[in-house]
């Protein structure tokens, strides 16, 4: 089984340096992209590969690139923003790439810059990723020194700059337009769409925003072709996927597996199943902002379409497991506290709804719950439905809440009835 994303990752945890990256075929794709292929061909190749955005939304990457206006009289310069603000709770997949193989992200970003006939890429990095920052900085320096970045890259006549920006921190910075505002030094509120960033993005210029894992796939697609990439997958979406598992499984971790691997295989084979004496009660398939699924859904293929059939989303593909010795109300409270806290405070449903939901959950967990609370919680999840809010944060926050109310309703009712959390703290 091919594992293009992680094949180079060193078992000792050190980063792949430029030499090792080059020995393993690194920057050949960039060379090809600059000297052998036209930007249009790059976009077509990525389109054909069925690469979909790995940040969680699954937007087709090639299509996104193709929406950037190019040609005479279109706005200049154009930018790529690399979303390395991995702040989704339970998600740690980009970190592996950033720390272990930073050149793969840089090369992917450089190719993206070329594809949109842009001039620069900005890597927006989560503030807590200190090690990744050090390694990216070193790798960017190496790439400049070797002529893979800078002026007239590889004699192609193209200039490609890559800048590293360390986030001051906030979940909202990971929302692509919040990220743009943060890059510009503004409050990380989401922006009005339309216009979309491909038309008016960073500093008002056309901008493509791609996730780290997405971009790390790009050099491999350019090197090996779209057909090869599609062949890696067990589903319609191309490629491999970094899947992860956290919670009380035997071996929490991260694995590169074919796209469309089932949740059961991830949890039972790779994560080694539940710890002894514990049973799986539910799981969040791809980060905190996805709906809970339960044991009956374990055979779902983890990709962008299959998981949706069961009322959830693959999201980032990093599973959070809820076991039968952990209070589901407590877990939901923890999640909603996070989302309420990270609401930027811009639109009313989000800032009021999530703060209210958090307070209700806290009351239930503290034994102060009332019968009507569950109705109120359900009403809030509808209040913050997609379209009602300004961005996707609150609808995402509603996903674990609405599904917890569906699958663990008895636990909520018991808290209210017994006026306490029945789980030992």
């Amino acid at each position: 089984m091919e594992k293009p994303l992680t094949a180079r990752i060193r078992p000792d945890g050190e980063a792949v340096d430029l030499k090792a990256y080059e020995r393993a075929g690194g920057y050949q794709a960039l060379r090809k992209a600059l000297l052998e292929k036209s930007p249009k061909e790059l976009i077509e190749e990525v389109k054909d590969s069925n690469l979909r955005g790995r940040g969680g939304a699954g937007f087709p990457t090639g299509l996104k690139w193709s929406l950037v206006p190019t040609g005479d009289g279109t706005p200049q310069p154009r930018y790529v923003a690399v979303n390395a603000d991995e702040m989704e709770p339970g998600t740690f997949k980009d970190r592996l790439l950033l720390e272990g193989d930073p050149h793969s992200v840089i090369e992917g970003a450089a190719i993206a810059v070329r594809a949109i006939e842009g001039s620069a890429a900005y890597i927006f990095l989560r503030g807590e990723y200190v090690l990744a920052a050090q390694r990216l900085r070193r790798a960017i320096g190496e790439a400049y020194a070797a002529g893979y970045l800078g002026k007239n890259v590889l004699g192609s006549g193209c200039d490609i700059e890559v800048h590293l920006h360390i986030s001051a921190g906030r979940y909202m910075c990971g929302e692509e337009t919040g990220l743009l505002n943060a890059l510009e030094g503004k409050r990380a509120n989401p922006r009005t769409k339309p216009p979309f960033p491909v038309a008016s993005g960073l500093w008002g210029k056309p901008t493509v925003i791609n996730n780290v894992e997405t971009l790390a796939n790009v050099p491999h697609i350019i090197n090996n072709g779209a057909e090869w990439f599609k062949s890696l997958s067990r589903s319609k979406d191309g490629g491999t996927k970094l899947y992860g598992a956290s919670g009380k499984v035997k071996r929490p971790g991260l694995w590169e597996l074919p796209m469309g691997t089932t949740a059961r295989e991830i949890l039972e084979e790779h994560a080694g199943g539940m710890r002894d004496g514990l049973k799986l009660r539910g799981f969040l398939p791809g980060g905190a902002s996805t709906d809970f699924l339960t044991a009956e859904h374990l055979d779902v293929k983890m990709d962008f379409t299959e998981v949706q059939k069961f009322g959830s989303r693959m999201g980032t593909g990093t599973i959070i497991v809820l076991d039968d010795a952990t209070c589901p109300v407590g877990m939901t409270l923890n999640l909603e506290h996070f989302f309420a806290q990270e609401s930027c405070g811009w639109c009313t449903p989000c800032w009021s709804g999530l703060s209210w939901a958090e307070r209700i959950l806290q009351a239930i967990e503290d034994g102060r719950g009332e019968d009507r609370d569950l109705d109120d919680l359900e009403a809030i999840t509808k209040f913050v439905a997609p379209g009602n809010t300004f961005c996707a944060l609150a609808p995402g926050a509603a996903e674990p809440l609405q599904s917890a109310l569906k699958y663990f309703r008895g636990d909520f009712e018991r808290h209210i009835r017994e006026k306490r959390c029945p789980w030992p703290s």
Partner: protein
Amino acid sequence: MATIYIDNKPYDADPSRNLLDVCLSLGFRLPYFCWHPALGSVGACRQCAVKQFKDEQDTQGKLVMACMTPAAEGTRISIDDPDAVEFRRNIIQGLMMNHPHDCPVCDEGGECHLQDMTVMTGHDYRRYRFDKRTFRNQYLGPFVNHEMNRCIQCYRCVRFYRDYAGGRDLDCFALRDIVYFGRREDGVLESEFSGNLVEVCPTGVFTDATLKQHYTRKWDLEFAPSICAHCSLGCNTSPGARYGTLRRIVNRYHSEINGYFLCDRGRYGYEFVNSPLRIRDVTWQGGVIDGAAGVERLSTLLAAGKVIGIGSPRASLEANFLLREAVGAANFFAGMADDELRLVRRILEIMQSGMASVPSLRDIELSDAVFVVGEDVSNTAPRMALSLRQSVRQQPIRSIEKLRIPVWNDNAVRDAVQSAKGPFYIASPYPTRLDGIATEVCRAAPDDIARLAFEVAEASDENSPAGRIAAALRNAQRPLVVSGTGLNNAAIVEAAARAAQALGAALSYVLPEVNSAGLAMMGGGTLAEAMEAVRGGAAETVIVLENDLYRRAPAEAVDALFRSARHVVALDHLTNGTTARADLVLPAATFAESAGTFVNNEGRAQRFFQVFIPHGEIQESRRWLRDAMLAAGRIEAEALDRLDGVIGALGRALPRFARVHEAAPPAAFRLVGKKVPREPHRYSGRTAMLANITVSEPKPPEDPDSALAFSMEGYSGQPPPPLIPFFWAPGWNSIQSLNRFQEEIAGPLRGGESGVRLLVPNGAGQQQAGVPPAFQPRNGERLLVPVYHVFGSEELSREAPAVASLAPGPYLALSPEDAKALGEDTAEVSIGGKTHRLPVLVISGLPEGVAGVPAGIPPFTGLSLPAWGKFSRMP
């Protein structure tokens, strides 16, 4: 025009507008918070949600925000859809989660947009059962009170303050339901437009701190349509009074002038009306006499002859005209400083010459390339500065046309435009508050500023500053030149006109005072001539109308005038140097206690009406003069009793004022037989407020001068714009009720805008003065230019305590080089024969040879500035 369907009925709609705007224009009751007609849409509050359907077959539909959705052809929406109704109710529930439930004791209650919208959406039971979040409030200065617990996070305050008005020190902090809108630390808000927060805030976070000193509910105030008296722009205001004191001023929308906003001087300067310095009694040689005796004295003086009258640029046309009638046209003098009078007359000539078009503030806002020639607009005509701040957005917005972002989509436009600014050039001797938006700033002495503007008129070389300015204006679609009387320099006035004419630009002059234009149009001699008349014995009695001559001429000259006059009569509001020297002092009604007409800097005559009846012997200056004329046997004064009679006589005597009567309907005007009430229909205490005097409620006072009644009774519909005392509509108690008074949101008021432009281009009065020689610095001397202060330089507002608290004391402004050469914190300067020791204020950028002193602030009142000041020790 597009056809859109609202709840299955077709309506015409302008597709360039958004659905909220269209729905409100059509009269629908669609609630909103974050949207503001002048600030555009941002989609934050989600209150204006409606259900949108794809087509007739679509029964599902989806919720959209009306403010964020264009009124495109064929759009189908439902306001009454149950999902939309419920969602809007839930939004209010969310907003009310943390909002105090204390409307009865909240000072916004009764004019609170949140209160209105809560009632409108039908939210009446709150399910939220937890503690409300609380904040610590900040001290924000004397104008604006801060009560953050009421905040509903609509972001209007920061959008107005930062994005629209260019302020920097108000911001939002933190997140979730605890976003804090305030300053980094307590302190006076820096923007001179901070008072608009009071109206922009949909609830009571930002309230009028001066109103709080003498609080009254909106429904308990009596109002009248008024005109701001504190600069030459003539912003429309709605002052409110109760128990014989003026309580506050709010904006009265005028689409061509002030739009939705006022400056803080205009909003807070009103307290001079309540000042302890108010003259309320008639005095004769220091002793109080009654009103009839005062009239008797004045009539005796008039009958004795040898009387001259000195008018005033801060008095109404009618008051000035009555004085002119009382003393005779030949004995009427204008009451401005002589050089200022010459400048204003020349400006009026230029405005009439047709050399350039005369823009309204709305036109200024839409200008796309601006050259400001020697006028510190932010301090002399602040509301114009707010319009100028919008002008720099015009070219950048045009440059992103390809993105097809509707202009109302405010954040999207701002994100696309970023910090790009259109061409904006300033020539000024000292830094101004508009420098931050300027493409280029030229610091120069007044004569050199004039030289630059003359050069701009001729320039062809694009590498010189003048050439760049000329090119920018020439390449613009709506170029504008702004100048004024601020630097008291005839060459600047001339050069600005020359530049505007050469570049095809509009031309706006800032004038010194509220009725400078009106007074200059009336004619009259100079002060020097008045002084000569008295000195030469041709005149024995001097009547000074609403004017402190110590602000018009050097103290020695005024002292000499008063010494040689046998009798001095002063009619004024506040005690001042002139009233102190007068034998007869007559208490004159202020703008709030009288009706009359001011002519603004566009030459637009606008009527203001009496707000309340003052305590004491106070009456309108024109009534004192008319009563005295009658008593002196001048029967022609009989026709000058009522305002309409005065205006008629004025138009007959001076044909250039023939159209002044068009500024507002006459006193006889009635709507279905009724007058327009000054008081809201909920006005309370009517039967009780005079109970200590008489238990039977007296008849309301008559108002012979207007179609307004001192009553809560009268016509209950919408009066014509010049007669709108306050904005209120059923269900709309806040200032946002204004929406109901417009045909189209942000357009003119129903019935057309008020005011009448008196100046008609006549092609006369072409170029006069030539190019002055270059400024030559002098050894040991500096040219002292007047430095204007929005708070402090204007005579009346500086007696309002809140404004006074922000006014600077006297100082001497020196360049850093001069300050260093001087090496001391204070400096001694001789000017006009007097020596002053003053604290030094260092102002970076003052040109070589130039220093500054605060305009209109003692001891620099009455001096003709700029003037050379001699320093005892200065290189």
